[in-house]
């Protein structure tokens, strides 16, 4: 294998990993930016997305239907949770949210285990993407390229949504000053429900897309939530662009670290995060120290 081809495949690998991480991180950072909530249940919703996606693609026999419907269902679930429970807590301090989302993570995790069992489930990639293509004569799974493309499309879509759409404008306004936005007639409650739902839906999209690579399993929530935290912290809590940079950084550190420094790979991500926080306590693009 030539060095160039090897590097190319590693880079694409890292990009596809970053795409999955980005789906997680961007939802978490949007939710934090708007509501100052660190959503501990984000990993559990990622997992829920994978399992709902598994069932949907089995019933419908179509990966694409599942890919669209699973995030919508999980997003609606998230919005309902905000509507029924989180909404009562906005006057309370951060620990209340910590506990309530930790509780949600436990409930969702257990509900998934009861519904789908403890075994890892295979979610096959759609036939169209199950193929292998050749990058400089090196075989490479097409599915990973598809992930990179999806990541780019979703990132651009969210960016345009935040910058151009009316709801995006309301989200930015509410993030900056919820009281002022409310005084100007913004229905802050509805904005919060939508953002929590969108964030959860994005996590589910990540889970659904990760499933063909890593299978849907009960363990996928616990590890992934920490990755998501790291991304958001590196990028700066509440920053959209920060979550993109954080996801790329973590994706590359994970893939290249695993190859070049396998003994340190686990620790490497945290070392990067520590180094960044030492220099910029609020994260790369964060405002708060």
């Amino acid at each position, binding site marked *: 294998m030539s060095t160039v081809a090897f590097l190319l495949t590693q880079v694409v690998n890292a990009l596809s990993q970053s795409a999955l991480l980005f789906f997680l991180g961007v939802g978490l950072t949007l939710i*934090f930016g708007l509501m100052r909530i*660190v959503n*501990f249940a984000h990993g559990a919703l990622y997992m829920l997305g994978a399992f709902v996606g598994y069932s949907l693609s089995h019933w419908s026999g179509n990966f694409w239907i599942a890919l669209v419907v699973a995030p919508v269902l999980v997003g609606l679930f998230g919005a309902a949770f905000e509507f029924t*429970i989180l909404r*009562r*807590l906005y006057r*309370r301090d*951060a*620990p*209340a949210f*910590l*506990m*309530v989302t*930790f*509780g*949600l*993570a*436990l*409930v969702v*995790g*257990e*509900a998934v*285990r*009861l519904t789908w069992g403890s075994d890892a489930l295979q979610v096959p990639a759609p036939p169209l993407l199950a193929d292998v293509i050749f990058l400089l004569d090196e075989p490479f799974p097409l599915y990973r390229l598809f992930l990179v493309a999806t990541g780019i499309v979703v990132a651009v879509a969210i960016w345009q949504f935040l910058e151009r759409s009316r709801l995006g404008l309301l989200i930015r306004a509410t993030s900056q000053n919820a009281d002022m936005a409310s005084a100007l007639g913004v229905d802050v409650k509805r904005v919060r429900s939508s953002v929590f739902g969108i964030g959860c839906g994005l996590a589910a999209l990540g889970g659904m897309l990760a499933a063909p690579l890593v299978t849907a399993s009960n363990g996928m929530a*616990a590890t992934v939530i*920490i990755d998501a*935290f*790291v991304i958001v*912290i590196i990028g700066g*809590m509440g920053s959209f662009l920060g979550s993109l940079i954080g996801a790329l950084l973590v994706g590359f550190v994970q893939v290249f670290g695993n190859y070049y420094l396998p*003994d*340190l790979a*686990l*620790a490497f991500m*945290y*070392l990067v*995060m*520590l180094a960044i*926080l*030492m220099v910029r*306590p*609020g*994260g790369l693009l*964060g405002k*708060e*120290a």
Partner: protein
Amino acid sequence: MSAALRPLLIVVVLVLALAPFGLPPFAMTLLTEALILGLFAMSLDLMFGYTRLVSFGHAAAYGLGAYASGWLLLHTGMPLLFAVFGAALLTGVVAIGIGWMCTLATGVSFSMLTLAFAQLLYAISFKWTSVTGGSDGLAGIPRTPGPFGFAALTSKIGFYYLVLACLVGAFLLCFALVRSPFGAVLRGIRENEAKTIALGYNTRLYKIAVVAVAYALGGLAGALYAPFAGFANTELLFWLLSGQVLIMVIVGGSGTLVGPILGAAFFMLMEHQLSSWTEAWALYFGLIFIAFVLFAPQGIWGLATGRLQMGRLRRASGP
């Protein structure tokens, strides 16, 4: 804590001291573990409840203490008591460094830095196999008897008394600490750090100090756990434990020292009871947390003392 509660606490300690005469061995095991976790949760309350330093990585203290005492007991033949206190001391010293770096940040960033250090230790515990045993952890940790009649502490009941003594001692230490001028500064940091700085206090030094004390006591809890369970593994450093101990503090009632101990006991009892009733205990566990946040924001201790005060008011205003 009001003076009226002091006799109550003394009664509770006496009951705990007499517990081995009335409880079956199985219940003693549970009680010992509950007290160890209570010590762990109380140590976090110093940071969380009194200083508003929300640590997401308190498992670092527990795991470090457990691995240190486990290693000392396994490889140096050091007596139980020395190993336990040595491990706690080591954890406190390491915590000075951790505290120094984490207090560069505030708020959520502080939480995430503590998490990062805990996960770093978690990663190290996996990879530094020659010392930590890797994913197997340290197994077969002995309770080495000491030279000056400490041998009594190595039996099941003796070990229970060691744990109880550590908990009571640590409680008295924390109680004295939060009532001292030092504690007043901590509360100042909790309520308004900028004002406390303006009053001329170097709040960062105070924060590093409280991190060191909290980690040392958390390390003591971990150092007791290793010889209690006979093993130390990577789960003791995993973030899930950090989340759980935070929940124990909140469920029990933060900023009260006693509350987190109750929270830990409640946590253990619920986990034990629910898992004996149903496979899906985590489901009910999660629902209980959510219910606590919605309906009992002050925690168990808040519920209990609120009830007491209400009763007193009713009596005072009665006929």
